[in-house]
């Protein structure tokens, strides 16, 4: 092949420069005035407390990043302010469906973030896939979302519910507890945890002595507790949402019944709410999954660590953050990292950026590790017990061994 003549070479260089200039101009023209992040929150209904916490965390992140001039968007090579477009779904899946649709088709948001929990996320998953949008899923951890590879879903701030109970099951096996009672809400979030737990226990030859679901709206546990007590369990594990946990723990404290081990989920996420309703004494010796900020991650690779976030949130919002505040803030961080890594401003590139940061990023919630199905496999929850300390109580991590801050009090003493 002969070398091009100087004239041809100059022509090619000129053409190349012209093309590059056009591309840069096109990029600059396409850069939006702000990055629209569409999300929903619930001001009322059973998910309101958790949803509002998550939303406050996201707002906190947006305010902080906008103070710095906005989020760096690699696709446009500049900082752009973020704008949160949010609607109130009132904890209703039917309202949420309409509003997710509105965010996608009318508001044409750039980034779609789901509301709290599996129930309100469930309606967003198919909608996002239908519109070829990546759904940033902060706390929807139901196993059914993550059954096949997808480019349109990323669980960012909570482990998939299928992995939650693995440390709990291992702890039960380690403690040589043989008689286990499992009571779970008949929804994907709780039922998938019960399923995983039973699978792990079965491998150790443990078959639950009581294993029943209850409606998600269940609020009276007195007769259920009596039925459970008739099976003489050594451990009673209740998987429910916060209102279920409150009703369960109050029912237990009023019933006069006592079990050597009692586990519920939400004291580890919404300790203030549960303590306010159940009372500190009734919570003593209860086991739970402790979550940030109750457990802290010091070494992070992106954003503030847990302790710094707690200080900053307290200063800005004049209150202690809970796990959902951390989850909302973490969601913002992941969106931020996604935008500063995506070479193009497309949903496909956003997804690729999430996959690229997976396994290499640690935030205030721990290691970020999303698989091809969109499930979060990092950010593991240990097992902790609430034990009395002076006039109050403290959370002691009892499993796994490398994270333990104390030994469990088992069997729990009668108070």
């Amino acid at each position, binding site marked *: 092949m002969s070398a091009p003549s100087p004239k041809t070479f100059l022509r090619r260089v000129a053409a190349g420069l012209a093309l590059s200039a056009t591309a840069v101009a096109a990029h600059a023209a396409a850069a939006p005035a702000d990055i629209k992040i569409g999300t929903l929150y619930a001001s009322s209904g059973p998910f309101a407390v958790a949803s509002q916490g998550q939303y406050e965390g996201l707002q906190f992140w947006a305010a902080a990043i906008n103070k710095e001039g906005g989020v760096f968007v690699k696709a446009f090579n500049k900082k752009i302010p973020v704008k949160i477009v949010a609607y109130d779904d009132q904890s209703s899946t039917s309202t949420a469906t309409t509003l997710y649709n509105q965010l996608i088709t009318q508001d044409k948001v750039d980034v779609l973030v789901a509301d709290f929990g599996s129930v309100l996320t469930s309606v967003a998953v198919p909608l996002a896939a239908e519109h070829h949008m990546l759904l940033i899923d902060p706390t929807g951890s139901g196993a059914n979302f993550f059954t096949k590879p997808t480019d349109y879903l990323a669980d960012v701030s909570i482990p998939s519910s299928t992995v939650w109970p693995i440390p709990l099951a291992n702890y039960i096996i380690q403690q040589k507890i043989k008689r286990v009672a499992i009571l779970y809400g008949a929804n994907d979030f709780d039922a998938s945890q019960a399923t995983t737990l039973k699978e792990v226990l079965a491998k150790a030859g443990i078959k639950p002595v009581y294993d029943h679901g*209850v*409606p998600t709206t*269940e609020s009276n546990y007195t*007769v259920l507790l*009596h*039925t459970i007590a*008739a099976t003489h369990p050594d451990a009673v594990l209740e998987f429910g949402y916060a209102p279920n946990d409150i009703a369960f723990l109050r029912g237990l404290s009023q019933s*006069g019944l006592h079990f050597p081990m009692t586990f519920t989920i939400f004291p580890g996420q919404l300790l203030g709410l549960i303590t306010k*309703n159940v009372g500190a004494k009734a919570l003593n010796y209860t086991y739970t999954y402790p979550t940030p900020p109750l457990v802290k991650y010091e070494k992070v690779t992106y954003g503030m660590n847990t302790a710094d976030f707690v200080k900053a949130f307290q200063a800005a919002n004049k209150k202690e953050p809970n796990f959902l505040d951390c989850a909302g803030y973490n969601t913002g961080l992941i969106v931020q990292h996604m935008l500063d890594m995506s070479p193009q401003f497309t949903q496909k590139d956003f997804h690729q950026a999430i996959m690229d940061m997976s396994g290499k990023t640690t935030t205030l919630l721990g290691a970020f590790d999303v698989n091809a199905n969109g499930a979060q496999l990092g950010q593991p929850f240990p097992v902790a017990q609430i034990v009395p300390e002076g006039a109050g109580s403290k959370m002691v991590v009892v499993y796994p061994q490398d994270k333990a801050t104390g030994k469990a009090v088992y069997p729990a003493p009668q108070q």
Partner: protein
Amino acid sequence: MELLEYAIIGGILYGIFFSLVGIGLNLIFGVMRIINLAHGQFIVLGAYAAWLVSRHFGFNPLWGVPVSIVAAAVIGFPLYYAVVPRLQRSGDPEMLSFILFFGIGQMLEALTVLGFGADQRSLPSEALGAGNIGVLGQEFPDSWWWAAAFSMAAIVALWLYFTRTKLGYATRAIMASRDEALATGISVNKVSALAFVAGLALAGIAGVFLPYLLGSVSPDLGDGLTTTSFAIVIIGSLGNPLGTVIGGLVFGLGTMLMQTYYSSWSNLVPYVLLLVIVLIRPTGLLGKAVRSV
């Protein structure tokens, strides 16, 4: 066998309480032929009254009972005169009341969220006794007995009102035929207004015990309580307040038996019972009694 006994006694106590939950709705329908779809929200307001009384002012939550009665009068009389006579002059009061009270219910829920927040609130366990009381060897929390006792007292008071007072006779006359009651000189509006306030007061009293039976109260509970009340009322007999007692007992027993033996399906109980009763006996279990009153 022990589980069955526990479920039956628990079902009776729970059912008596739910008779009180539903009876106000039935009283208002029986007298005015309007469906108070805000009934559940009034129950929730009763629960918040007890919460205020106990957590804010430091009194026993039972003081929520007189507070609910006073609040029912303060809210009920103006509300009655503002909407009910107009509804009854319309061509289709039942359907219009359905829409109007649905709106009132949503407003009350929104106001409750604004006033108290969306989170769960509970009442101090020890206020009604932190122990258990046993019958036939089956123990239930003290608060269940208090709830059942107050419910029984309220139902007996309503029965005495119907059967021993002139106003009660007038109320029953209006329930049998509004036009004939008017023709006999009964002050239908005054008696109806009183029944309306009584219906709200009964809802408020039920609300005082709600956080003990359901663990906590939050503003969103209203719609579910209205639906459950509606099922209980229809099971007993729509328009016959005392039929609600039967509806409540059937609901309580059904729910507790289902919780004991097949817990996943326990929330279907009121609706399955409703369906069965409507198919077999469309007038409700005490439907005949309505006609004989």
